[in-house]
């Protein structure tokens, strides 16, 4: 197992354990629907009940994402969003919150083009705690995973229902922070799995690692989220939040008033769902 650097991520999972509950991770695309609104949304996520924030780096070709997140990425890009501006938003957030973990999530090319060494230095300084890079499987880990760990951040690996027992040791070998279980074979925002579907996979994964497991893809409602943390350590919601943004845009994709509070409202409902589940040992 990779050396487990202490980060805001590992501290958060320790807190959750002490509190005897599961966590809520929220995914939004940086700069969607525009920089200012996106920043307002980001700023209120933790207060609304998000335990960790997955912050999407906009990319022109998000091959693992469904229509909702694809569109959010394109909207952000159209408004001029960049990786540098994404880090700026994180800096703003860190002025008010030095506890909530932020994980950059996205595809490799924007990071590669930024330059790995400068990127890791800038991201660390901005207050990033870890990375989920969808198209960097363990087979390509020397590029970013190992340098990120060396720079004191976590590199989170995805596991999927297709990741069989033979492959799992390879995937968890250099994982740190937590394991992200993609609960369906599919793209974001489409199918959903039940906790009964998920449980056997988590059991398999736990045979290979002690890291906490967050579950994502297809979790939409407070009930889904609650069911998910009955078996997983955290539930991650993305497309459902992005959909609130999509539903509150005018025909030119400009935000209608009150978008951020609407996103935060769904986050607090999801948080209530997650917190309704008592995970104390023996409970």
């Amino acid at each position, binding site marked *: 197992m990779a050396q487990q650097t202490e980060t805001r991520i590992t501290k958060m999972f320790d807190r959750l354990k002490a509190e005897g509950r599961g966590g809520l991770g929220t995914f939004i695309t940086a700069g969607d629907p525009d920089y200012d609104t996106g920043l307002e949304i980001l700023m209120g996520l933790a207060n609304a009940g998000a335990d960790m924030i997955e912050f999407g780096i906009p990319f*022109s*070709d998000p091959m693992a994402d469904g229509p909702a997140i694809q569109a959010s990425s394109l909207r952000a890009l159209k408004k001029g969003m960049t990786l540098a501006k994404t880090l700026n938003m994180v800096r703003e957030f860190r002025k008010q919150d030095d506890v909530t973990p932020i994980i950059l999530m996205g595809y490799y*090319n*924007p990071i590669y*083009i930024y330059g790995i060494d400068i990127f890791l230095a800038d991201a660390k300084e901005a207050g990033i705690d870890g990375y989920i890079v969808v198209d960097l*499987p363990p087979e390509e880990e020397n590029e970013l995973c190992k340098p990120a760990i060396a720079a004191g951040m976590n590199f989170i690996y995805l596991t999927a229902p297709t990741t069989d027992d033979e*492959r799992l040791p390879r995937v968890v070998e250099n994982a740190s922070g937590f394991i992200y279980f993609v609960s369906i*074979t599919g*793209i974001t925002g489409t199918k959903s799995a039940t906790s009964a579907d998920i449980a056997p996979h988590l059991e398999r994964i736990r045979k290979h690692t002690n890291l906490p497991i967050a579950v994502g893809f297809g979790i939409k409602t407070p009930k889904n989220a609650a069911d998910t943390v009955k078996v997983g350590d955290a539930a991650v919601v993305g497309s459902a939040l992005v959909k609130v943004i999509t539903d509150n845009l005018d025909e030119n994709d400009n935000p209608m008033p009150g978008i951020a509070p609407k996103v935060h409202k769904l986050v607090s409902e999801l948080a209530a769902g997650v917190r309704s589940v008592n995970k104390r040992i023996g409970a």
Partner: protein
Amino acid sequence: MTKHNTYRAGADEDGHFGIYGGRYVAETLMPLILAVETEWNKAKSDPDFWKEFHYYMKHYVGRPSPLYFAERLTEKFGGAKVYFKRDELNHTGAHKINNTIGQILMAKRMGKTRIIAETGAGQHGVATATVCALFGLPCIVYMGATDVERQSPNVFRMNLLGAEVRPVTSGTGTLKDAMNEALRDWVSNVDDTFYIIGTVAGPHPYPTMVRDFQSVIGDEVREQMQEAEGRLPDTLVACLGGGSNAMGLFHPFLDNETVEIIGVEAGGKGIDTDEHCASLTLGKPGVLHGNRTYLLQTDGGQILDGHSISAGLDYPGIGPEHSWLKDRGRVNYVSVTDNEALDAFQLCTKAEGIIPALEPSHALAHVAKIAGSYPRDHLLVLNMCGRGDKDIFAVAKHLGIDMGDTDQG
């Protein structure tokens, strides 16, 4: 992996050609790609697999395709002896079928029952739909919505062959988005589906697997040139979309250092404009569709759309092995514009009675520029990788001739 004595050893076991290639895909796909690789490693050393491949090459595709001495153009250019490798005579009218036959045999070996593909111009889609008809497998072809409109005859052809064409509106609705959508389909249908990629790109092992199927072109040229002239060719020229017809011609000759090799990219409206598709000439290395390679992209690493009059060339990337060959300096990559390709299209049609596709018209446009500078005994081979029937409407439009909306032949 750098074996200094050969250009033909790649990819290494992780699928890299130097820094290019690799397997940059989501974890959900990783086990599937590893399964394709495992099966490919078995198939490529299985004589029965190649026996079956060559059976279809001969009896279904019509191989070997002729190596034709283009005497009239040779006279016109006044230099090198110009030969055409006539893959435009293949069944379905292009080199694409060499690869789809190979891959459907792989799908069969793996027990897959559902085929998906991406297509730009529709040539790879037609070639995939064709082999699916032949083997009785359901076929879904992803095609950018703009291409569905531009290439309606090919859409109809695919439908006739029993394939379902799904227009892709995501992203910019072009070939790169069709490939994204095919990958999304694959992630969503992991048990029964085989993805037939149309060129020497994508995650390992696709670039090498497609190359090995298309190498039938270069292998034949070597034999046919030996027969015709008693020696190796001096110069090879091919057009580059994703790079499969070019790699098929080039690869068997890479270690023959006397053979000059030239790849021709689509220069669109000119490489001093924003509307071109010269990934190797003007792009920079990046990661897309499962591999690292030269890409057209912004300073921030966002992928740009290419432009070319030839729908088969406007892919913003290029097979990773070409990127490696460019950096190694083994192959010389150049570009020609839409207008130069159109001129070559007409020249070839009138001088040789061969209507070339717009893709190899690019290669011919470059040959027109250089042939005169070679001596008369210089042997030049151009890969005539597709016929131009599909392009007559686009050409008519550019020549300002109205052929009507509905009567498309």
